[in-house]
């Protein structure tokens, strides 16, 4: 996926603004990166360079941190971030089946984003809702007891919402 020049500019500006509130104590590196990810949804290379310069550490160390922790993304997420829980209980109740349903429906693999940037697909280690297994988290909303047909339903519901929003924008048609 290509990151546009505007996105790069936005990333640099956002990161710089965030860094103003932090001193160069190395304990702040991860909190800063978390903030960047919160704002942008991912941490691009340009943001890593900014952070590295601020803390006087090599950029590669920041890259090391980003790739060590599962939470950080290197590419922009979709508008709907679908996270499939891969905890024990979810696994035993068919999380891999749910994963395949999403992959099949969206025509992308785990870790990818659809071309229209509508959906991205990720896995998470246990969100702690084991009693509701299998669980899928879409943005911040948790959906429990998912089945392949529920997956279709969730995608369809989103399509309807989009359609409504479109029609709402042009009411006289």
């Amino acid at each position, binding site marked *: 996926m290509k990151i546009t020049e505007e996105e790069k500019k936005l990333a640099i500006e956002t990161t710089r603004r965030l860094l103003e509130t932090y001193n160069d104590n*190395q*304990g*702040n*590196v*991860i*909190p800063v*990166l*978390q903030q960047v990810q919160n704002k942008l949804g991912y941490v691009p290379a340009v943001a890593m360079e900014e952070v590295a310069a601020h*803390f006087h550490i090599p950029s590669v160390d920041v890259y*090391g*941190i980003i790739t*060590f*922790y*599962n*939470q*950080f993304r290197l590419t922009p997420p979709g508008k709907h971030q679908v996270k499939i829980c*891969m*905890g*024990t*209980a979810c*696994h*035993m*109740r*068919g999380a*891999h*089946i749910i994963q*395949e*349903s999403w992959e*099949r*429906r969206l025509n992308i693999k785990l870790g990818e984003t659809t071309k229209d940037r509508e959906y991205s697909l990720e896995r*998470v*280690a*246990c*969100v*702690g*809702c*084991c*009693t*509701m*297994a299998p*669980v899928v988290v879409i943005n*911040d909303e*948790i*959906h*429990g007891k998912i*089945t*392949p*047909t529920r997956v*279709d339903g969730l995608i369809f519901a989103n399509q309807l919402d989009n359609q409504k929003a479109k029609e709402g924008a042009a009411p006289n048609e």
Partner: protein
Amino acid sequence: MSKNFPAAAFAKLQEQAQKEWARLREKPLILIGAATCGRAAGALSLLKDVKNELAKLKLDANVLEVGCMGHCYAEPIMVIHNEGLPAICYGYVTEGVGARIVRDFLTEGDPCVEFALAALEPNDMFPTFADFPRGVYENKVVLEQCGFIDPQNIDHYISTGGYTALTKALEMPPEEIITTIKDSGLRGRGGAGFPTGIKWQTCRNAPGTTKYVICNADEGDPGAFMDRTILESNPHLMVEGLAIAARAVGAGKGYVYIRAEYPLAVERVALAIEQARVKGLLGDNILGSNYSLDIEIFQGSGAFVCGEESALIASMEGQPGIPRHRPPFPAEAGLWGQPTIINNVKTLSYVPHIIKNGADWFTGIGSGENPGTAIFALAGKVINTGLAEVPMSTTLNELINEVGSGIAGGKKLKAVQIGGPSGGCLPESAMDTPIDFDSLTQAGAMMGSGGMVVLDEDDCMVEIARFFLDFTQQESCGKCTFCRLGTKHMLDILERITKGQGKPEDIDTLTGLAAKVKAGSLCSLGKTAPNPVLSTLKYFREEYEAHINEGRCPAKMCKELIAYYILPDKCERSCDACVGSCPVEAIHDNEDRIKVIDQEKCVKCDSCTMACPPQYKAVVKLSPPHLVLEKDKEYKEGKQKWQQ
């Protein structure tokens, strides 16, 4: 400074809180369980429904968002306190039901017993939770208030006895606090079971004036969710425990390390810290004493290994979370090289209770070397999933069959997976094992953080071993060669076995590699990573052999080794539920209008099994997959015979 100063200052806070608490009960009170598990089941829309209904009927009632009371199987849960009747707890309150209960109960006085789970107070009319088998075994200490108080309101916590322990601790000499904890025999609930008092003593004795206390809320074990529940339902309990621990070792700064996957817990703890600060229970000169403490939250970034204390510290220092050699232990040289104690959420949550009730009270629960209670997250194929707190040394059998009400769907229990990726699978024959640190380790599992996943006959043991190894292999930080490469090799072998490409020598190779990974790893992640494989090999070797020698998965779970098949004599011609459910259009009619699955197209998603009406149950799984051909042949021959 007067010695009674904290107590006097606290008495005022308490009085204020109790007034607030009493005011709450002047009107009907509705509690809705809205922890993450409740939200997944739709608690927030229930909350909206109830509020709408109250507004519509112009009724006056207090509606509170509370945490989780542990009965997760019945989510969403609602409790109504109404004048004249005992408080009643309702379960499975789905859309529409909540509004109806509120309407009928508050306007007509009909408590809608058909939706009730139990009453909360003893009475003559309804059974309470204590009357069920679960209630007989449960002994709630840490979870006592969870689900009954508003986690976002410090007054609720204070009015139910909260922060009295901290007040008491401020008047005790630190040595005495440590002695009490030592006498109580409290062992760390994070998994290893190290005596908490000794850890604190080491930290107190360590030279230096800057010391830290960290609450480890990086609950990474898949299948464990009790730390999340405690933090979401009663965050002040942990904050109070942390403050007492800090006072005992003489630390001026505390941290709560919460994992990124728990956004709601982060929010609740942040609010709790802020409220405690406003009330003067944290910050400078707590309750007018000369002790000061501040607590900060540090969010984890999604690395399982950061639950290990030295990796956790590395991550707080802005490094990749890679464990280091111990000693020196963090209690001597931890965060930024200063003496640091790191305790699990549950451990710290016991502390206020022990200080309040004394060490003898705590040793009175549980058994000998394992005093107190154990909190278990029951999940998997058990009927009553949720959180249960039972005295230590309760047996597995009691926990699963009495507290959990047995296995769902009339299936047979096969094994219990305890302790997450570091633990093991115990078979049915080990069901009399008492649950405590020592007995479980002896049986080949581990207490771990208390996640318990119940497995039935449909679960494949090779697959679950593969699942855990896949997890640890991905989460290995890569420092130790054996952990990094050994687990990868073990995973490759297990993957081959689950695909039916196992070789007879694989079992020996696995055992050998397991021993080497255990010996060659620095931290517990690598040291315990082979446990799931070893315990399943020990108790379920025949399943491995079936996979390797016959290409058959006895539990019919491994995808490559099964095929879906529709039994012709059970399939109903006029029904086509399965056809519509198939996402890849693999089901079609044959010449007899019986549904047939095209094996080439089938993605084995299980949709048809779920769609097939229960009165037919025509879809079955066959293993090994070539059985489908035999079944087809059988069908054709049978038809020929019948036609002749």
